[in-house]
């Protein structure tokens, strides 16, 4: 397991909607080592405030040594990140955590909700690279409104997988939840469902998987200081009654290992 602290040059900043941005970073060590579902810790500034790095899932990597993150401005750290200019240098630490465990012989359903779409592009790429038969695979993307989904859709079309789209307000695709689209599929126990999104979404996805006896992997979020198992801040209760740590044992978990509040 190789982890790097890299000085990465920002090569591109894209504003995809009012608050959502995508950053492309030149970071050959990290992008070369990264697996789908892993994350990086980025220092959004060099001053003492904000102090801590911020975790971001890896949106996708490219063969020329770049990776991308896709994020929303929610606080001071992400606000600073949104103002970064191409050519600036950022301290990036990664790749961190355990990513998705791709099941080569199982048809895949990839579900991304809101910012949870971020790691799913890397996953879709990896799945299409690893698997010989993707004819039964699906991608379902959702969000509250058009601007959370539409700007990313073209990147997901390149895989030729069946693509389902949903928005809460119906401004794009199906009006309703990604779980409506999941339920409308001809589901069978052979499927592996990979999901990332808001907690209630993942809880519903898991409950559908459970009743349909399908494997379900989820990528969860947590506050964390270090991203590498030193601070023990990112604890999450497991079904066994013990705490697990999102940064080391996740962020991708088998959904059945975790406790879900429905």
């Amino acid at each position: 397991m190789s982890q790097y602290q890299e000085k990465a040059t920002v090569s591109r900043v894209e504003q995809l909607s009012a608050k959502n941005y995508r950053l492309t970073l030149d970071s050959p060590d990290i992008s070369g080592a990264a697996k789908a579902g892993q994350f990086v810790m980025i220092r959004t500034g060099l001053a003492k405030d904000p102090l801590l790095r911020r975790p971001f899932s890896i949106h996708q990597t490219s063969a020329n040594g770049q990776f991308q993150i896709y994020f929303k401005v929610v606080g001071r750290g992400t606000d600073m990140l949104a103002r970064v200019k191409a050519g600036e240098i950022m301290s990036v630490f990664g790749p961190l955590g355990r990513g998705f465990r791709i099941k080569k012989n199982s048809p895949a359903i990839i579900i991304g909700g809101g910012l949870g779409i971020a790691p799913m592009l890397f996953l879709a790429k990896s799945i299409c690279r690893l698997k010989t038969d993707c004819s039964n695979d699906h991608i379902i993307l959702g969000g509250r409104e058009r601007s959370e989904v539409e700007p990313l859709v073209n990147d997901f079309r390149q895989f030729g997988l069946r693509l389902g789209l949903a928005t809460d307000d119906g401004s794009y695709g199906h009006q309703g939840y990604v779980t409506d689209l999941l339920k409308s599929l001809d589901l069978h126990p052979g499927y592996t469902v990979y999901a990332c999104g808001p907690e209630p979404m993942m809880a519903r996805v898991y409950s559908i998987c459970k009743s349909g006896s399908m494997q379900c992997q989820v990528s969860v979020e947590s506050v964390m200081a270090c991203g590498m198992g030193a601070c023990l801040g990112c604890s999450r209760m497991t079904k066994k009654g013990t705490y697990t740590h999102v940064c080391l044992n996740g962020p991708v978990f088998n959904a059945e290992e975790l406790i879900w509040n429905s």
Partner: protein
Amino acid sequence: MEFVDNREDIFPDLRVNIGSLEIANPVMTASGTFGYAREFENLMNLHRLGAVIVKGISLHPRPGNPPPRIVETACGMLNAIGLQNVGVDRFISEKMDYLAGLNIPVIVNILGDSLAEYREIAERLVGVPGIAGIEVNISCPNVKKGGVAFGTDPSMAAVVTKAVKEGADVPVMVKLSPNVSDITLVARAVEDGGADSISLINTLIGMAIDLKTRRPVLANVIGGLSGPAIKPVALRMVYQVASSVSIPVIGVGGIETTEDALEFLLAGASAIQIGTANFINPRVSEEIVEGISKYVVDENLPSIRSIIGGLSINDG
């Protein structure tokens, strides 16, 4: 033959003494910010450290507090991890082999709910190869009993120190809480109790509130503040304590740079610990060793020891 002053070939004298323990340089990693060291092995050269202080160990394993356990604050962070650890027996069987192989002094941070527990942990560590010292945590704000109570009452602090000293076969460092009105009282009590050295400060008790939900951010309600926000408080307390005890003092609190570390040495610390900064830059402690080394060379100091307590106070 021409003499070339090649500064890269100069190995400055960075050794410091913590009582009977001599360490190669004054940089240690603070308990609870460096795991059991192995977590950092791919990210830095562990052999460059003066000493490593491992995550606090209790007699029995502790699960820690429910999340959220941490929150960032201005120039710092609050934590309420709740001393999650594997317990002393698993620590010895699972972690010590690796630590002993590091060839750097390993200091084991211990904590208990009672005097008997503190003493028993110290006794179980007797004879375990690779342990150079014990750091006694009498100052954790995040557990219901023990911990902080021992740290705020000077007579209790002395009694705990004595209990650990009686049980231990290695030098004992006692880590003080800053959450007291006069830290020199606790420091002197701990010295009287037989401590070989004193480390300070542990975190300052703090709180963060989420206005939207009108709830505390931390599940534990309160937590310990660390990071650069606390450095001035730590410096002041190190200065006060170093002036009032005769045992070595180890400074900790918000150290992020070589300059920070040197300021603590001037204030009277014989060594320093790097804490929260490890979370942001896992190589920071090694970089500070390099920085201190460069400082000794650049300033033509005979050794790093020559600046310890070297603060000039202008009385005029």
